[in-house]
């Protein structure tokens, strides 16, 4: 099982009643797995992580075991309820799984969410493999109910997306009865109640410290006493791989830390090294407790993820040499790219042509920042595109009109874009928002959301009407465009950005991978090699199906005798026939195989 599959299994075995999430790498598969494998657990996609955690709080309030799962930056969105949830505690056990992304494989930062446990004064478990992912999740529910506290379980990409062997067990029946309870002193955080609960939080933390001393997940392994390694999570595996002979204090619970257990470990070994990924969280805590480890972040980097080699070299205080160079020449990189036929490519081709500044957001379209499109200019967090564009409008004044747009996807818009668009209209902005409605949460691998009309389990449900929503928020000018039609898209954008009023432009092209949205794909386009001038207009769309091939000899001339450096090639197995290239070719060298060339597709 992957770590994420093990978390899903753990939820099932713990008797979780309600599981809620918003998709985000590397956490997405936890809820997907619950939805497909464990029908006894109610599962839903929430529009954002704040809502997800609040839904879980509601379920816990009536006594059900509840779980919210999210990526590290999702916890920022859920931080508001989380900080007060620490005060109110639980009835049914509540676990928040935070999946961090050291090395930023698919994220905008690599924050270390262990800080949240200290900040919210709640316990945090950190598994080292899939087996522990399942075990610690189940223990999380027991600890949550025993101490009246939410519990965080922290994963990282290398736990969530790694596989290991997992022993399965039968599900348990949770001990708490599910019923409505009136407990205003516990759940209504008026200042008078909250002051009392804050004292409870501090007392609870003392009890949790005591619990940590005997917690089975905090394990001492005494071998060679010359070196003792204090570590947790995935770092334990790297250190154990590199130095199986040394002694270990493996912390399964990273907050609060067991002071007595640590003191004993310091007595048993000659010197202590702390091995941890990202911030010196354990190291600093040890130092504030008065311990003096011999090494920590002076040996291991704060930035990026660890691996067995970094741990080995850091322990030995050696520099990492580049691997022996069998092949030295630079290789072409392979960055992620928008798919062939992607509806975003048409829109960004127009934005590039119009030389507009685009405030961007989180999704596949963020990839338009890469060359050759290079037409997305900002990316901060979910929903920020719209608010930033509004801020730009107010700062630039009338001189900025017609020079920039905000670009946001449908799932991101429903996550955090509604409030800023309301603000844009309320505060009389001229900023134009382009909503890329591709009918799915694309980047994380096609998840449903309130705009798709389906639930996580594929049941039909209410579908948001973005036109009506835009108007309700106060945007009078709401227009739809077909993003595969360059002329139409350009015309509408030009008209809307000139207006002295907020506009919402909705692109109607579904994600090319969403088969259910298409009647059929088109036939692949072809290059007429007698006409192609090698001007690269089509190549510069950045479509993976189109390549530039250098030509020599007879091929270096067109049929009319004009010289050319190369010609384009369209790989038929990759081309779904969106016809964008057909529109940008000035030499009629791209041939449609359709009876009447279509700009885009027949969608359902």
């Amino acid at each position, binding site marked *: 099982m992957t770590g994420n599959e093990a978390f899903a299994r753990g939820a099932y075995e713990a008797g979780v009643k309600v599981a809620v999430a918003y998709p985000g*790498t*590397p956490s997405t598969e936890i809820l997907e797995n619950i939805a497909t494998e464990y029908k006894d657990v109610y599962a839903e996609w929430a529009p954002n992580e704040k809502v997800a955690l609040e839904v879980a709080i509601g379920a816990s309030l009536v006594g059900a075991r509840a779980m919210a799962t999210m990526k590290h930056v999702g916890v920022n969105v859920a931080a508001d309820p989380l900080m007060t949830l620490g005060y109110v505690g639980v009835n049914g056990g509540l676990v928040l799984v935070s999946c961090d992304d050291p090395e930023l*494989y*698919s994220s905008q930062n690599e924050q270390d969410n262990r800080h949240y446990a200290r900040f919210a004064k709640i316990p945090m478990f950190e598994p080292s*493999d899939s087996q522990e992912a399942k075990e610690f999740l189940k223990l999380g529910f027991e600890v949550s109910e025993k101490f009246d506290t939410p519990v965080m379980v922290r994963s990282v*990409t*290398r736990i969530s*997306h*790694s*596989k*290991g*062997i997992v022993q399965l067990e039968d599900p348990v029946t949770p001990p708490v009865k599910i019923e409505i309870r009136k407990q205003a002193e516990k759940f209504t955080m008026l200042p008078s109640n909250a002051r009392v609960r804050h004292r409870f939080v501090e007392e609870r933390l003392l009890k949790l410290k005591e619990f940590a001393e005997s917690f089975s997940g905090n394990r001492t392994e005494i071998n060679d006493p010359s070196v003792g390694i204090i570590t947790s999570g*995935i770092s334990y*595996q*790297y250190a*154990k*791989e*590199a130095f*199986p002979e040394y002694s270990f204090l493996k912390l399964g619970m990273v907050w609060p830390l067991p002071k007595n257990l640590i003191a004993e470990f310091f007595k048993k070994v000659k010197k202590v090294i702390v091995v941890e990924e990202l911030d010196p969280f354990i190291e600093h805590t040890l130092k504030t407790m008065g311990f003096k480890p011999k090494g920590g972040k002076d040996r291991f980097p704060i930035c990026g993820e660890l*691996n*067995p*080699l970094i741990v*080995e070299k850091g322990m030995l205080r050696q520099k*990492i040499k*580049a*691997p*022996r*160079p*069998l*092949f030295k*020449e630079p*290789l*072409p*990189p*392979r*960055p*992620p*790219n*928008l*798919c062939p036929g992607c509806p975003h490519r048409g829109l960004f081709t127009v934005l590039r042509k119009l030389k507009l500044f685009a405030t961007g957001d989180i999704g*596949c379209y963020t*990839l338009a920042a*890469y*060359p*050759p499109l290079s037409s997305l200019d900002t990316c901060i967090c979910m929903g920020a595109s719209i608010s930033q564009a509004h801020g730009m409008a107010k700062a630039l004044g009338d001189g900025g009109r017609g020079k920039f747009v905000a670009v946001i996807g449908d799932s991101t818009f429903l996550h955090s874009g509604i409030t800023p668009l309301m603000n844009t209209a309320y505060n009389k902005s001229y900023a134009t928002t382009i909503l890329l409605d591709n009918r799915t949460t694309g*980047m*994380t*691998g096609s998840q449903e959301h309130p705009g798709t009309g389906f639930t996580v389990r594929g049941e039909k449900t209410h579908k948001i009407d973005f036109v009506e929503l835009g108007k309700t928020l106060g945007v009078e000018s709401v227009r739809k465009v077909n993003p595969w039609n360059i002329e139409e898209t350009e015309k509408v954008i030009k008209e809307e950005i000139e207006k002295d009023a907020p506009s919402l432009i909705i692109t109607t092209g579904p994600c090319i991978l969403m088969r259910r949205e298409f009647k059929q794909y088109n036939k692949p386009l072809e290059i007429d090699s007698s006409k192609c001038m090698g001007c*690269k207009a089509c*190549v*510069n769309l*950045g479509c*993976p199906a*189109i*390549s*530039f*091939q*250098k030509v020599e000899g007879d091929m270096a001339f067109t049929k009319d005798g004009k010289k050319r450096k*190369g010609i384009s090639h369209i790989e038929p*197995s990759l081309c779904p026939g969106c016809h964008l290239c057909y529109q940008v070719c000035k030499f009629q060298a791209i041939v449609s195989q359709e009876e009447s060339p279509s700009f885009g597709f027949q969608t359902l």
Partner: protein
Amino acid sequence: MDHQTTNVLVAGVGGQGVILASDIMCEVFMGAGYDVKKSEIHGMAMRGGIVTSHFRFGKKVYSPLIKEGEVDILFAFEQLEGLRWINHVRLNGKILMNDNKVNPPAVNLGEMDYPKNIPEIIQSKFKDFYLVKGTEIALQAGDVRAANVVLLGAMSKLFTIQDSLWLDTILGHLPPKVHDLNRKAFAAGKEQIKAG
């Protein structure tokens, strides 16, 4: 092999079936009684980027990541991705590579050339190098998606695990209507490797 861990690095391009292939290897070696771990990066890699999967088996495996420079077997689904990782293979390591090229963006744009003579470069540095016509054979068999099964067939020849365990695991991941095609793909892949 019972007392040490074997490191297999599977490398390719998003969409080639790298992750499924390493999933299958994981199950096969678990079925054969080994401790197994594997780790990979997906997410943004779905959109045509580099996909690598670290697969490790042995008596007891700790890290899911292979230590740099300690790859025993490089299993490459594409030529450039094969070349990209050869610096990480042990000098006496094995390389099994699909004879297939997928252009990266810089090559499509005409800014860089796709490296020439990759098989010859690798052959000159590694004695145990196997070039498999995975994509070509799969196309002949009737479905390019069977390329990873052709490659797994070839890979199976590097180990002593019985074919039935490989085939049962592979077919368990596929709908019944393509079982015959994939049995043939597996057998054809095995024939690509002469040494047993």
